[in-house]
């Protein structure tokens, strides 16, 4: 048996080439500066920024986080400095890292804001890809774009015309059929889908009889949602052709591998960044070790290679 000396973790998502498939998820990594003391940021596959909107956003009323069994709720509400301040204040640091930067964007009022943002980001050499956050549960909207296949199709189509950069559409798990929405994103020209955003949730302080979050409800993340995420990745993998970036409660190498085997081409580390700032880097070396131990030359050899129980 030939031993694998240098496992190959590189991959491409549309025009976006990555040296490894481990990203950090939007909203859990700030604009990367916050993690510079803990890890060598250059080792990351890609960095997805905290979501950016056209105008600065203050975000929701505190308290904004609370712990739940094996997870946490957040209702940050997309606090961010706005696109202009992002470009001026945050991008220079990110550019120096020489790691693909994926700008996560969202609209506050009208879907047209996506077009404004994409036009601006399209011109920037420091931005490698754009993630359309059409699935944030913390905007006090009755319905998210990603909860409707037609709206998802229209939104993705409208921005697809504006950029040749890699487009990733981030979807909500709060839907009847994830495949229906993923197919709509694919048909509209999205280069990849990111699965999953947080699950809508609520937690109550029984002594005070008040919700634990200032905005009452929030998004659930962490290991508690991992089985939901793995299942949705697996379902979507069987229906769509574009790559899937899998996320939802990935804490370590083993949980990352679940996503690859279910069908994800890349993964994002989210809540784990809060608990162990080194989680993403540990997963990169853990994947190499797994590949070496199992004689796997290319990570693509395990993507979607789920076997039936009695095989």
């Amino acid at each position, binding site marked *: 048996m030939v031993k694998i000396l240098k496992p190959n973790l590189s991959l491409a998502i549309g025009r976006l080439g990555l040296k490894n498939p481990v990203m950090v998820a939007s909203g859990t990594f700030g604009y990367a500066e916050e993690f510079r003391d803990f890890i060598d940021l250059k080792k990351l596959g890609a960095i997805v920024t905290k979501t950016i909107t056209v105008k600065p956003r203050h975000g929701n009323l505190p308290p904004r986080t609370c712990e739940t069994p*094996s997870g946490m709720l957040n209702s940050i509400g997309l606090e961010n400095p706005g696109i202009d301040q992002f470009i001026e204040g945050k991008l220079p640091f990110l550019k120096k890292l020489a790691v693909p930067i994926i700008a996560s964007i969202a609209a506050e009022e009208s879907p047209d804001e996506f077009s404004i943002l994409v036009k601006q980001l399209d011109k920037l050499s420091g931005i490698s890809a754009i993630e359309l956050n059409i699935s944030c549960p913390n905007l006090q909207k009755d319905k998210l774009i990603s909860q409707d296949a037609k709206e998802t199709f229209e939104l993705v189509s409208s921005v697809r015309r504006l950029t040749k950069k890699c487009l990733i559409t981030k979807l909500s798990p709060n839907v009847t059929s994830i495949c229906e929405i993923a197919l709509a994103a694919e048909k509209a020209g999205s280069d990849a889908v990111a699965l999953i955003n947080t699950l809508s949730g609520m937690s109550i302080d029984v002594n005070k009889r008040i919700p634990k979050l200032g905005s009452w409800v929030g998004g659930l993340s962490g290991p508690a949602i991992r089985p939901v995420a793995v299942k949705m990745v697996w379902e979507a993998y069987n229906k769509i052709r574009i790559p899937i970036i899998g996320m939802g409660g990935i804490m370590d190498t083993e949980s990352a591998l679940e996503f690859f085997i279910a069908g994800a081409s890349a993964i994002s580390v989210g809540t784990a960044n*809060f608990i162990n700032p080194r989680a993403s880097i540990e997963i990169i070396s853990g994947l190499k070790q797994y590949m070496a131990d199992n004689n796997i030359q290319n990570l693509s050899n395990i993507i979607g290679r789920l076997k039936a129980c009695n095989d």
Partner: protein
Amino acid sequence: MKIAQIKAKIISNKRLKRNYWHLEFESSIIANNAQPGQFVNIKVSDGLGPLLRRPISIHGVKGSTVKLIYEVLGKGTQALSARKPKEFLDIIGPLGNGFGYKQLAKAGKAKNILIAGGMGVAPLVFLAEKIKPVKPLVLIGAKTKNQILCTPEFKSLGCTLKLATDDGSAGFKGRVTDLLKIVLEQAKPSRLFSCGPHPMLKTIARIAHENKINAQLSLEEHMACGIGACLGCVVSTKAGYKRVCKDGPVFSSEELIW
């Protein structure tokens, strides 16, 4: 300033009294860099419950030893109290911006006042050590006598100590903020430093404003990351929301909107 994520060996972890605990761990990097008002963020158990780290104020350092005191209130602190000496804790620190204490007015009657509510004594002992030559006046408030902590530490640092208890079992009967008002009738300090429950800090901010005194207040909030990334622990300030973990936990009272 250097922030480290380390596996730190527990030296001791003992109950002080009631549900107050004292923990010491070994870390020269945290001990050398820690400033009063800063905190450490501790993964109290290796598993998924509790999931998030728990932020705990730094109580003091001695050589390469870092001292903490904490109150067992929920699952996190309960799990922490079960940890034994020689075990290792995953700790990030020192974090946040502490008290600004450089260029304090030299020793004079009640020029610098430290006001602690309950567990709020933790960072103020560390501050009192750093400003020892100034000999600050220390006011400690609690519900009842046996909830008052750290009086020997303050005394050994040469601080003048005044106590307030809700039930009058020690010192002044009433709130520590009422005791502060009485103190202010006699002398006007140049600075107030405080740590304690939110309503107490709010009252101190008002008193400081009315008396035109600079007050530095250490706030507490639920945190997810503790390193400024998640924007979970924000507080309202005149410059918009600020992060308790990174921009604070110590804020100037004039910055804050209550």
